């Protein structure tokens, strides 16, 4: 089932955490279905408690559905014998880079995963070099991770996952703790991995300006998928976003207001540059 249409299939998944008392809590995921194609860049947005992180942890078998199924490259995450194949296929990156770094130097940290795979040393070397090059951190190979900025640490964490050669990266709010420079570095790295290395990317975020860069946006609320579509289509629904108290990107709000004043702006304006181009075209026709 490893076709392009359905690299990851989430099929009517519900999930409840178990409380300390042993009782099931209210479902964190309720009948969630989602398909991700190979090479796609999907952003999942929603508040804390919307279920987006719980969904992310299902994509490589860290959590298993209470009901329903998750398929990764044709493997069911419930299937014990595929557990390690799945973890190798889908790499996870979390919010806090400090919790993900284990070694004394950057290259040892990146080598940690491939070493655990039992690869021969020369292959480990080449994978580490490659992974550091992909995230633009080669010159820091021998540095101590603790001397790095937040954005650099997060790129090392991504390199550590990339060195395992996953086909898909799931990133759970990777920029939440970073400053603007760090956020930009990490977002550029993610975009490049998707575009040039053709790695499937699933980005969990509550920054709408990051979601705008995806091929598709999935909006979650109360454990359900409430909307799904291109960024242009989803962000057009400003009432829905406001109702959920998510931020509406200012450019999109401006485009909608200008259209309401009957300016003939094209659909799908998401960025400042697209807005400048559209306005200049319009002006040249006055």
């Amino acid at each position: 089932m490893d076709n392009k249409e359905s690299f990851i299939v989430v099929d009517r998944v519900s999930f409840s955490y178990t409380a300390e008392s042993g009782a099931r809590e209210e479902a964190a995921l309720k009948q969630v279905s989602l398909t991700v194609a190979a090479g796609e860049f999907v952003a999942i947005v929603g508040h804390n408690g919307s279920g987006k992180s719980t969904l992310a942890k299902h994509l490589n078998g860290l959590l298993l559905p209470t009901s329903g199924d998750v398929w990764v490259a044709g493997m069911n995450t419930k299937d014990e014998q595929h557990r390690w194949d799945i973890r190798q296929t889908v790499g996870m990156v979390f919010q806090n880079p400090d919790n993900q770094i284990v070694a004394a130097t950057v290259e040892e940290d990146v080598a940690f995963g491939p070493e655990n795979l039992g690869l021969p040393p020369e292959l480990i070397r080449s994978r580490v070099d490659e992974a550091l090059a992909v995230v633009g951190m080669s010159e820091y190979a021998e540095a101590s991770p603790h001397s790095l900025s937040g954005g650099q640490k997060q790129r090392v964490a991504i390199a550590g996952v990339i060195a395992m050669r996953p086909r898909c990266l799931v990133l759970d709010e990777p920029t939440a703790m970073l400053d603007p420079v760090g956020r930009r570095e990490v977002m550029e790295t993610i975009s490049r991995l998707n575009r040039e290395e053709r790695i499937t990317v699933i980005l969990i975020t509550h920054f709408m300006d990051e979601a705008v860069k995806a091929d598709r946006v999935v909006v979650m609320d109360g454990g359900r998928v409430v909307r799904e579509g291109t960024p242009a289509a989803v962000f057009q629904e400003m009432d829905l976003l406001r109702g959920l108290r998510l931020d509406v990107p200012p450019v999109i709000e401006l485009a909608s207001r200008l259209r309401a004043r009957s300016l003939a702006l094209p659909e799908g304006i998401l960025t400042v540059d697209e807005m400048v181009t559209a306005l200049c075209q319009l002006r040249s026709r006055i």
Partner: protein
Amino acid sequence: MPIEIKDLTHIYNPGTPLARTAIRNINLTIEDGEIVAIIGHTGSGKSTLVQHLNGLLKPTSGTVKVDGVDINQKGVDLRTIRWKVGLVFQYPEHQLFEETVWDDVAFGPRNMRLSDEEVRARVERALAAVDIDPALANRSPFELSGGEKRRVAIAGVLAMEPSVLVLDEPTAGLDPRGRQDMLRQIQRLQEERHLTVVFVSHNMAEVGALADRLVVMERGEIVMEGPPKAVFAERDRLEAIGLGVPEMTALMAKLREMGWDVPVSVLTVDEAEKAIMAVLRREARVGTRGDL
């Protein structure tokens, strides 16, 4: 109660091979009731600066005066300074430690040796100020959501009823709803209690919306200062130090580069809409189309 910072320099580990100058020759006065945002990227000295405002860090040289009193002078009781200038750290929720929300918020006022009645009144006011349901008071802080925990931590500082509130990145890591609530509450505290507010932030849209004045730091020095519109008008300088401007300010700057006669000092969607419509209407009038 103005805060006056004069020629403030702070060197970590002075006189050792690890010596590092974190801030250098800072001069800054913060007036009563002002909301001042300190921006700059990681390592620019923002946190070091704000930790001097209540005496948590001691200057290597220079002075910090609160209400005319040099807080690092001999004989000044720093505890009373900390009651006046409340400091909320980054990720303050990591410092919650009591068994209940109530006890955590009451910790400061109890140390002030206030009467039980006064402690109770203050805890109630502080929880109300950050919109924490009184029904949560007997819960463990660890059962709350991330946004709620942070608000409880802020209530713990508010309960000391300071006249200056200093917050180091109050919205970092919060989801959009948590961020919107936090900003609204800071604004309300300033309006209702006339608190002076100093906050550190990376988010240009939020400092533009909330602050009366921006202080931009780079490599330990103040490099720009002024009302948000004036600071954001210098987009090239901000970008050179790795900071951006709000999206609408950037849009206006790019339109100007394309020959549009729009003002540079635009922060909101409202203002941008008006500026764009004004240009198009003006040109439609002189051109052939009159339908705009």
